[in-house]
């Protein structure tokens, strides 16, 4: 292994001298991220009943995440490619450890207690799975052959099932979709796609009767008819749609949302935070935020298109698509078109681990974006 693999030479003779190349920072990406974080903090302030405590904590995590992102961007993508399988295996091992030694709350076992801090392996897998797949598939001839597809599918399904067992259906779905996107971008054949669609249809009854827990089924039923469960999850959805709808075109104004301020809205600072934004800033606010998200995703896809290696392309593409899944699932569930799974809205919902994980992913994207051109 060469020294250059770890830290790039700052003054490589004849190298690119633009600041983005020297600092290995993709400035458009950075600006959009900072804009999203600022909006997130403003909405969080309102959603947490004007609590400086939450905002400070969240801001701390954002700074940690930003720092981690910049550090990660300093490493060559080649290095991540080489280490990805090892990282994946470590992640898998810690998922198994969670199964036996995990701690948790509310009936779910998701954390490993490391003494100093607690660590959630399923969060790590959100990055480790696409990275391992991108690395594995990037080295093969594309489109991938049956053997390689099979290995990639198995490598995805093991963590998916382990996380679903915790139980954490939201994260498990995210990991599953990241594996699928990696395969799709690698050029998965049409017959596999049709086969996947058929399996998915067949899996619905199996999931219903054998895998899903009662509370998860309840959430699906709630989606179909929220009126049936007015005191439980249906209550949340009824309140969140009321909050969104009453926001109208331009909203009630910052910190003036009656639904959220009067505590009608449950989980208003975590998973349901978009309802606060929609109530206080109206449709204009929602569209503005969506636009920022799309800009971010667009920038990421551009990075994917221009990446120097197949690993970089698949990795960058998968991260941007998974990011969109977060947004779609969260905004869909809060507005009542998807069942309630625990899925935060990226950079806006309160929650430290999720934010740091997101930044780690974008760190790898920056590394890919600033990789010197190969000749």
């Amino acid at each position: 292994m060469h020294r250059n693999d770890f830290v790039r030479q700052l003054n490589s003779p004849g190298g690119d001298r633009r600041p983005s190349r020297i600092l290995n920072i993709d400035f458009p990406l950075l600006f959009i991220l900072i804009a999203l974080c600022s909006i997130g903090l403003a909405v969080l302030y309102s959603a947490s009943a004007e609590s400086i405590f939450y905002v400070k904590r969240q801001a701390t995590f954002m700074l940690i995440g930003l720092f981690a992102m910049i550090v990660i961007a300093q490493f060559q993508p080649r290095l991540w490619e080489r280490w990805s399988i090892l990282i994946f295996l470590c992640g898998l091992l810690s998922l198994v450890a969670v199964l036996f030694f995990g701690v948790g709350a509310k009936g779910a076992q998701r954390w490993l207690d490391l003494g100093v801090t607690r660590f959630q392996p399923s969060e790590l897998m959100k990055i480790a799975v696409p990275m391992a797949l991108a690395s594995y598939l990037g080295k093969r001839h594309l489109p991938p052959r049956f053997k390689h597809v099979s290995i990639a599918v198995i490598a995805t399904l093991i963590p998916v099932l382990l996380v679903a067992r915790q139980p954490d259906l939201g994260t498990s779905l995210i990991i599953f979709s990241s594996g699928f996107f990696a395969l799709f971008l690698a050029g998965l054949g049409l017959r596999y796609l049709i086969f996947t669609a058929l399996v998915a249809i067949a899996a619905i009854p199996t999931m219903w009767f054998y895998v899903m827990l009662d509370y998860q089924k309840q959430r699906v039923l709630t989606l179909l008819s929220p009126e049936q469960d007015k005191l439980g999850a249906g209550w949340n959805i009824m309140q969140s749609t009321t909050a969104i709808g009453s926001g109208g075109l331009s909203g009630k104004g910052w910190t003036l949302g009656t639904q959220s301020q009067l505590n009608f809205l449950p989980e208003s600072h975590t998973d349901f935070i978009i309802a606060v934004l929609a109530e206080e800033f109206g449709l204009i606010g929602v569209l503005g935020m969506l636009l920022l998200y799309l800009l971010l995703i667009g920038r990421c896809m551009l990075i994917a298109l221009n990446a120097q290696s197949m690993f970089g392309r698949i990795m960058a593409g998968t991260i941007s698509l998974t990011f969109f899944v977060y947004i779609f699932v969260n905004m869909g569930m809060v507005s009542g078109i998807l069942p309630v799974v625990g899925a935060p809205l990226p950079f806006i919902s309160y929650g430290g681990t999720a934010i740091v994980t997101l930044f780690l992913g974008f760190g790898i994207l920056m590394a890919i974006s600033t990789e010197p051109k190969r000749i």
Partner: protein
Amino acid sequence: MKDGAAFSDPARERMMFARRLLLTVVGTLLLTAVLIARYFDLQITRYEDFATQSNNNRVLVRPVAPSRGLIYDRNRKLIADNRPSYNLTIVPERSEDLEKLIADLSDIISISERDIERFRKRLKQRRPFEQTSLRFNLSEEERAVLAVNGHRLLGAETSARLKRFYPDGELFAHVLGYVGRINEREIKTLEAIKYSGTDSIGKIGLEKFYEQQLLGEVGSEQVETNALGRVTRVLDKTGAVSGDNLTLYLDSNLQRAGLDAFKGKRGALVAIEIETGGVLAMISAPSYDSNLFVSGISQKNYDSLLYSQDRPLFDRAIRGQYPPGSTIKPMFGLIGLEHNVVTPSYKINDNGYFYFKGIERPWRDHNFARGGHGDGVDLAKAIIESCNIYFYGLGVKTGIDLLSDYGGQFGLGATTGIDLPGEKRGIMPSRAWKKASRGQSWFNGDTINTSIGQGFMLATPLQLAVMSARIASRGKVLSPQLVKAINGEQVPVIQVEQDISISDKHWDYVHSAMKDVVHSSHGTARSINKGLTYKIAGKTGTAQAISIDAEDKYDSTKIAERQWDHALFIAFAPADDPKIAIGLIVENGEHGGSAAAPIARSVMDAYMLSNSSTALAENEEP
């Protein structure tokens, strides 16, 4: 690439990737359009609806409490009922100034500091605009005062809800248990939605054991309120589902007869229907009025129950553990016969002392100390007159392993599996038990103590009744059950294990000896045979509450009453076709025959009487 080409084509792969990426861009935009459409629909198209709805959130969803399942005794007599009760509730969001409202309310009705303190605790756990109770059980007068002053008490309301009521007060206190207000510890463990309509939960007894069945399912109603928080109309309603009704094996008449017979005494009695294992009576005396607990017992009342020397709150029937004393003799006799340790013709000479090889100090017969039971004591006589010396020998020869194995089969040393929470297991000692609990090996002296039901041995009154039922039924191993039917559907009889295998002639022999305990002129329970129209088989027992040295004579005049021996009795009737079995103890009652047996007789009389009357009714029917 079937030929496994060694060349990859980077340019072609890049093109393929670009096409795929383009597809995902299209997908992303389509799904974004779906989101925008949904938010547009909510925020623009249906804006008016939602704006009205959120306007002070006038439309409320309120839980509708289910009515708790009723409990009946075997004769369909209602023993746990629901009655309406009126509470004063507050919705703080509706009041202009909560503190002032509480002060105003205190002026017109009595509200204690404790009420206010509890109210504040409950406030923290509720949802916005949810009613929170400040005072329970409003009297008619208080309701009238509140109604008159209603206009100036914004945010306060009286609400009716159903409250548990036990018509027989103290008759079933320990068995039924009671419901009480949900406390903070319970809130953390229970499912909040299920309990959103109710503020009480089964605390002990059957009310706790069958909580899930009794609770029912909460309903909900969507109501529109005016600006003052008063409900103007109900928009939509999902009805609550009442809890399941329970029918018990318990018989109020037997329960009453037993509790009356215990008057002034402490102890417990359990009566079991032999055919089913159903519990006909279960009494722990003294009892208390379970209605006291339903909407919060006052500290004064609670202290007087808690610190009473008679410990009325203690459920002796399933939690009291006593040495079973001589009541285990019929069982040990059966074991001795079955394993040929003794035969019906085997006799001993009893001079009142039992010497065991190597131990200088003798064991002595405390029950009958005037020089022993004399010559020619066979097993029947040893049971009828309760001769300890005979059983010392029988026990040592049988050995602890067999004794404890059979003891387990007869229901000792393990929970019986009755449908009540908190049952104690008692102790049926064995080598393994002593090693585990005391870290010592088993000695022959331990066997000698065990063979008369003393030493380490402990049993609950319920276990005594179970043992008695298993002797009466010739070894049928049924689990005792309180609930006979749930919502009219019969609960199956629980056969725990296979029958105890002992040959019929031995059952006959022991049954006949037990009958003579009551009906022969030397029987220890002969005092209760006067005027009996049916035959009772039984066995008395006396258990030391304190230990007495072999050389001292037990003299009740020298020791305080609380240290007097416990009196025990097991019995079944009719002796030749057993229907009911009883186990009972009278704390510090001294003699099983004089203190305990008469109580058993009153309960059996009540049973035979009601049984013959139902038999008559059945005969009349065709």
